[in-house]
């Protein structure tokens, strides 16, 4: 090329093209400014796409100089929601750069764009490793931060050693970051926890609050994960108490002061760690009693920070084995919180009271009126908490008053509450208030469509069985649906009731309330409107038609009208309605003599296991409907998983397996806690055919059907006359049944099993389980031991009580599990050879 005499000209010539083709990428600021001028989403998208294209080409150029700027822009666009994955590798390149500026943005990008689901992130491992050993502490800090944020298990495993080293450094900036990074490592790879143990020795000796803070976090994490660590760190309690004391007593320290309190964050953290250490440990709890009392009384509560500390203190007091004086102090503090003007304080107070209501029920009861006042608060979160707490506080004594308040609340609360409310309400009333029927009707009336569909049959059943309330019920329901047919379950129940008790309605017999004046025609008007209304579902229409039909025997003047209505629907499009109408028509025409008998008042229904109460019991973690679950006499609990195995194994529908001992701890849902609180109540709905001398069950007394017999001599002399049987004999294990019949209760048979072992090795972990057909009830008491000694040198004895009200032939399926000769054995058998005297 002759035009270019020298290389420099050539270079400049070529560069000019380059510059023309590739203008410098715009700065982040410019991009933001541009985007803000966009008036529509589409415009913004267009700008972003254009910029993305520019960034992509720039990345392709492999230009180190602008990479930083481009990635910054990419991160901004990512935050707005646009895809930015093509920048991931660029972040890695930035991390690998020598410049701090690049590294800073690179690591930030890695934290925002990458996580362990992308394979790319593993490429960072080497960079991070180098940077952890960098000469500049800020670079080390960046590396620690990124590792602690999004390090995957592989990365953590590789780099744990480096982190551990940094945990021991004297540089407090790095030490605190290393501590948190260690927490992340432990979370990802719990096996590595041991590795950090030596480094924790001196952590609490630090003066720097940042390090102290993160060290406490690290110790907390370790204690929460491993009971051994927990035991090991208990010895730190005195040191923690000392640190806390210094913080409180030290007076004003400008660097750590927040609103007049010295480093409240650290105080809160230490209190939390103390809580974990003191739980279930008398000595540690003893050691912290003083300081907790001190914090509780000395903390300034005018600002939020003081309250935060106080709150944490209260939680700690409630959780450890504190003395009762301290506990009362704590609950009173919570009570004071409830009266505070600050909503946040009230909120946290309600939350903690909910947690403590199980253990310190009486103390919380004292604040009931304040809690009930909170139901009227404007704040949704507070209302919800107050509602849950109110339900937890309901007991036999205060139920009437509480229910009134709660129902008033229901009237005014938001829709999203109503479903929860109903569930809680159902649970409460079913358990406590078999007699408090008022409330149930109220519920049906006011909560309307928020009641679950399957509650309709339950409600109807309840109404039927409460004979004296019929008039009141039908009146209330009638009033409730006047003009408003939108709530289907409510309309269904109302229609049913009107059909059943329409005569009571018309005759104005209500005692509970001012009886309303309504004529038969008005009632029929309502029912017909339900039939016509667009809002009625097919099911509801069915209810209404049947109700109209039933009224033909209860009403006197309007039978003709009823006939007419029924015949009209004989040609309805809805097949169900049509069928019903035709049949009812036939009833009028051909079978009029049977009509009054057929449409008679419904009798009191036997309480079968319905969905309502049974499902509630299911929230306790049982997997089978267990209305027969009862509280056993205090004996060692056995795991329910065994019972579930039995269930799986048997699978048969006609056998009701027995759970050897009922679990006494229930899951944490509010409903579950409620049941726990009232768990003593016998939830059985089955008619108690066994005569129990005990009266209607009260809250404090367990009332297993057979317990009432315990005060009287159970066994009669005829007992020795019943032959014993060998129920099982295999592999050296023999199980014999001996029988006794009860004096007072002929339906009860007491079987004593004796398990013996004729082999030369012991059988250990022996568990006996039994299942009986549904018509029986079974209770298994605790075995004498779990080892069947060899060579018949001893036996395991266990008592089974069987209730056989229908005097059916006794059958039993048994399952045996034990360890023998080093292997786990398991066997199932059916026992059919019960002597007739044992069950007849």
């Amino acid at each position: 090329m002759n035009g270019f005499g020298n290389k420099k000209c050539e270079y400049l010539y070529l560069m000019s093209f380059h510059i023309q083709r590739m203008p410098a990428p715009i700065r982040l600021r410019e991009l933001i400014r541009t985007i803000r001028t966009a008036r529509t989403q589409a415009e913004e998208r267009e700008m972003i796409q254009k910029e993305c294209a520019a960034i992509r080409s720039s990345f392709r150029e492999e230009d180190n100089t602008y990479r930083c700027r481009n990635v910054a822009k990419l991160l901004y666009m990512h935050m707005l929601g646009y895809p930015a994955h093509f920048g991931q590798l660029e972040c890695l390149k930035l991390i690998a750069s020598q410049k701090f500026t690049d590294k800073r943005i690179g690591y930030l990008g890695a934290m925002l764009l990458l996580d362990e689901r992308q394979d790319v992130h593993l490429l960072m491992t080497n960079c991070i490793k180098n940077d952890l050993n960098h000469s500049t502490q800020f670079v080390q800090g960046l590396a620690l931060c990124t590792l602690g944020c999004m390090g995957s298990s592989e990365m953590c495993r590789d780099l744990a050693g480096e982190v551990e080293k940094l945990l021991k450094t004297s540089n407090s900036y790095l030490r605190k970051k290393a501590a948190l990074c260690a927490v992340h490592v432990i979370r990802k790879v719990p096996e590595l926890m041991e590795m950090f143990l030596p480094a924790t020795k001196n952590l609490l000796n630090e003066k720097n609050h940042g390090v102290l803070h993160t060290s406490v976090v690290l110790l907390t994490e370790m204690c929460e994960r491993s009971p051994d660590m927990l035991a090991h760190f208990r010895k730190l309690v005195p040191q923690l108490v000392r640190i806390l004391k210094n913080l409180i007593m030290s007076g004003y320290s400008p660097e750590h002061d927040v609103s007049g309190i010295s480093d409240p964050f650290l105080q809160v953290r230490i209190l939390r760690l103390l809580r974990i250490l003191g739980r279930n440990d008398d000595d540690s709890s003893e050691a912290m009693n003083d300081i907790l009392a001190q914090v509780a009384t000395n903390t300034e509560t005018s600002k939020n920070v003081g309250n935060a500390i106080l709150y944490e203190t209260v939680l700690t007091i409630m959780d450890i084995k504190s003395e009762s004086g301290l506990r009362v102090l704590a609950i009173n503090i919570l009570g004071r919180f409830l009266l505070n003007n600050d909503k946040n304080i009230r909120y946290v107070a309600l939350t903690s009271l909910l947690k403590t209501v199980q253990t310190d029920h009486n103390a919380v009861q004292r604040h009931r009126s304040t809690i009930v006042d909170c139901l009227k608060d404007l704040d949704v979160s507070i209302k919800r908490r107050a509602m849950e707490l109110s339900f937890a506080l309901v007991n036999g004594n205060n139920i009437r008053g509480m229910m009134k308040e709660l129902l008033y609340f229901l009237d005014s609360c938001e829709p999203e509450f109503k479903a929860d409310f109903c569930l809680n309400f159902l649970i409460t009333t079913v358990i406590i208030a078999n007699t408090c029927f008022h409330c149930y009707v109220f519920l049906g009336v006011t909560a309307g469509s928020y009641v679950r569909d399957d509650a309709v049959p339950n409600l109807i059943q309840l109404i039927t069985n409460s004979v004296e309330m019929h008039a009141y019920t039908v009146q209330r329901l009638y009033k409730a649906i006047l003009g408003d047919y939108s709530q289907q379950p409510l309309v269904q129940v109302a229609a049913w009731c009107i059909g059943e008790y329409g005569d009571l309605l018309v005759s104005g017999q209500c005692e509970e309330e001012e009886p309303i004046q309504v004529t038969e025609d008005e009632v029929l008007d309502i029912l017909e409107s339900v039939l016509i209304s667009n809002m009625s579902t097919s099911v509801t229409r069915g209810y209404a038609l049947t109700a109209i039909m039933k009224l033909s025997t209860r009403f006197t003047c309007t039978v003709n009208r009823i006939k007419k209505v029924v015949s009209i629907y004989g040609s309805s499009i809805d097949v169900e309605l049509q069928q019903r109408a035709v049949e009812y028509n036939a009833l009028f025409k051909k079978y009029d003599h049977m009509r009054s008998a057929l449409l008679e008042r419904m009798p009191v229904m036997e309480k079968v296991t319905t969905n309502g109460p049974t499902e509630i019991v299911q929230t306790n973690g049982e997997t089978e409907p267990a209305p027969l679950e009862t509280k056993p006499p205090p004996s060692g609990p056995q795991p329910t998983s065994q019972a579930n195995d039995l269930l799986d194994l048997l699978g048969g529908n006609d056998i009701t397996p027995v759970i050897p001992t009922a679990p006494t701890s229930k899951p944490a849902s509010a409903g579950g806690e409620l049941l726990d609180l009232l768990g003593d109540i016998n939830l059985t709905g089955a008619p108690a055919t066994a005569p129990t001398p005990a009266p209607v069950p009260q809250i404090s007394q367990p009332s297993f059907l057979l317990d009432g017999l315990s005060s009287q001599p159970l066994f009669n002399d005829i007992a020795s006359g019943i032959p014993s049987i060998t129920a099982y004999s295999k592999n050296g294990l023999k199980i014999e049944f001996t029988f006794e019949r009860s004096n007072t209760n002929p339906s009860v048979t007491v079987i004593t099993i004796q398990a013996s072992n004729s082999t030369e090795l012991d059988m250990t972990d022996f568990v006996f389980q039994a299942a009986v057909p549904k018509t029986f009830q079974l209770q298994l008491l605790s075995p004498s031991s779990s080892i069947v000694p060899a060579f018949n040198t001893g036996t395991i004895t266990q008592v089974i009580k069987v209730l056989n009200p229908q005097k059916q032939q006794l059958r039993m399926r048994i399952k045996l599990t034990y360890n023998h000769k080093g292997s786990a054995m398991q066997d199932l058998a059916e026992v059919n050879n019960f002597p007739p005297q044992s069950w007849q």
Partner: protein
Amino acid sequence: MIKAILIFSNQGKPWLSKFYQPYSEDTQQQIIGETFHLVSKRDENVCNFLEGGLLIGRSDNKLIYRHYATLYFVFYVDSSESELGIFDLIQVFVETLDKCFENVCELDLIFHVDKVHNILVEMVMGGMVLETNMNEIVTQIDTQNKLEKSEYLIPHFDNHDRE
């Protein structure tokens, strides 16, 4: 553990979003939208704690928010954090921003997202609170910024403009 930190305007535009648990991009955007929806209809004088939205764990997680002028600061935490403590932490965060930016306003946050991230990184790491002492944080930020500036002075094509 802190699950997420969000800052957005009164209209719901996100000015900062940091998630400490892996969520896909779509989920992240949905969470931002849902949070705004939950928080914007709150009155001024109700409490600052809410149950988490559908996407972020419902009743296991709590939403703690503070409203400053035209900005919402939202922290999502799980049950291991003290609500009142986080409430104070937000205040400390905002005061730190104030110190770093000199009377911080919304525009500062908008145009200097990366700086806000840098400050946040000094306070919260991996979802856990790292440092709560405002002066300490400010000192460290200043030192790091100086380090960056010193790299500009190296003669090169003057092209890094991170400002």
